[in-house]
């Protein structure tokens, strides 16, 4: 790809419906090499590398009809060992109570830089889990999971989207381990300032057409929530009903997606923020007309980028098919590295991985014929 020079090799951690893969880049513009599948046949919802030590990885797995679990690697993904106590809901306390069963772990987030070994996970049904030992044992975060409002906020284990209601987008304020945001689908955005002991909805300004009261405190459907690492008071979200941005001090979401082209709309799933420029963000819109085909609008896949906090959006599609490209990109399947210039990567439900090493200007297909891609993360690992 033109313009990309002196880039450190990036490894993409590709989670698919039939296994995990490591897709290794070379510099400056060499080919990408795909690893053998990891746990071929297992549904892998997320593979995440720990930036605090660069060698630990966690993987959220669901194998056929077996129960969900988490695998850990401490050698850059070469070998994997199962967590000795993966996330699980507490047993029902009385005969009349129906206990909750974890369907799968969906999201993984390394904890705050000041808390090595701490990880958070989100699941279906929507619950928050914490590990204090590098992902080996997990406990539910009672302040959220046992909150008296939990079923009201998230629909609990009783409803949700066809793929299952999920908790995802766990965002930790780099200034404080106590300050965490998360999102649930359905439910919306929630915030704690006491490391998970208490939570409050953070959804003012979101208008959800499907709710009886469109501007309700909760019940919204956040597809992806991102906090900007250099300005942690700036939040972006791709919502079921548009693209929103919040300056935390103002406490109200503003629908910046209204500036998207009318024939594209502002509905989609993934959301990526530029790690160095708080005003730059990327989305991958989908067709949300009529029956919501969830494919690229008009069969012409494109990333849209803003450099002014959502006031204007520019189409970036060089390299993508010009027609008959019906990509679907799931909420965890688009991400960036931290290189300069920035690399951006996305995986499609029909098993392709695409990448741009020049901040989205040009795109190239990096891998094909994989199973449905569920998540893509970028890491810089030793060669």
């Amino acid at each position: 790809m033109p313009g990309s020079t002196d880039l450190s090799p990036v490894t993409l951690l590709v989670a698919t419906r039939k296994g995990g893969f490591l897709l290794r880049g070379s510099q400056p513009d060499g080919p990408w090499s795909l690893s053998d599948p990891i746990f071929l046949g297992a549904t892998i919802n997320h593979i995440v590398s720990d930036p605090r030590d660069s060698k630990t990885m966690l993987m959220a797995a669901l194998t056929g009809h077996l129960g969900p679990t988490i695998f850990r690697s401490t050698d850059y993904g070469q070998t994997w060992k199962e967590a000795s106590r993966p996330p699980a809901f507490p047993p029902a306390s009385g005969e009349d109570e129906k206990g909750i069963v974890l369907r799968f772990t969906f999201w993984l987030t390394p904890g705050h830089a000041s808390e090595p070994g701490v990880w958070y996970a989100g699941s279906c049904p929507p619950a928050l889990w914490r590990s204090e030992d590098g992902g080996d044992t997990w406990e539910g975060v009672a302040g959220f999971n046992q909150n008296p409002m939990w079923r009201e906020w998230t629909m609990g284990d009783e409803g949700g989207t066809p793929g299952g209601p999920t908790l995802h987008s766990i965002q930790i304020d780099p200034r404080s381990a106590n300050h965490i945001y998360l999102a649930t689908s359905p439910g919306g955005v929630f915030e704690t300032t006491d490391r998970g002991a208490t939570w409050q909805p953070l959804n003012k300004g979101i208008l959800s057409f499907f709710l009886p009261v469109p501007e309700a405190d909760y019940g919204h459907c956040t597809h992806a929530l991102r906090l900007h690492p250099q300005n942690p008071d700036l939040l972006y979200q791709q919502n079921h009903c548009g693209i929103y941005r919040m300056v935390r001090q103002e406490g109200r979401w503003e629908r910046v997606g209204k500036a998207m082209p009318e024939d594209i709309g502002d509905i989609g799933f993934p959301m990526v923020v530029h790690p160095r420029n708080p005003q730059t963000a990327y989305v991958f819109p989908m067709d949300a007309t009529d029956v919501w085909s969830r494919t690229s609008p008009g069969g012409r896949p494109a990333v849209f980028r803003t450099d002014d906090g959502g006031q204007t959006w520019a189409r970036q599609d060089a390299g993508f098919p010009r027609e008959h490209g019906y990509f679907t990109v799931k909420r965890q399947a688009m991400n960036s590295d931290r290189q300069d210039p920035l690399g951006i990567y996305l995986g499609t439900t029909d098993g392709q991985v695409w990448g741009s090493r020049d901040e989205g200007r040009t795109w190239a297909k990096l891998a094909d014929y994989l199973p449905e891609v569920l998540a893509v993360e970028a890491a810089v690992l030793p060669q």
Partner: protein
Amino acid sequence: MKIIIPSQLLSYTRRVEVQVEGGTLAEVLASLDRQFPGLRFRIIDEQNEIRPHIRIFVNQETARSLEFTLRPEDEIRIIGAISGG
């Protein structure tokens, strides 16, 4: 007693037949999990229910509860993915 392990769980046991002890299915699965940590949770959920699509046969009979009583000569067979497809 003997327990037959399905292919989906061979990553834990590395063999098809495992010897276990116990007077109930709950005790046998506890024994199995002591030998192969983590295996039980893959087939029994946190509410002590056999997971959907997992079947456990004792000889010719389907065991539907962990309270199922066992005799030393019984043969247990775990089957993964009986769900019609």
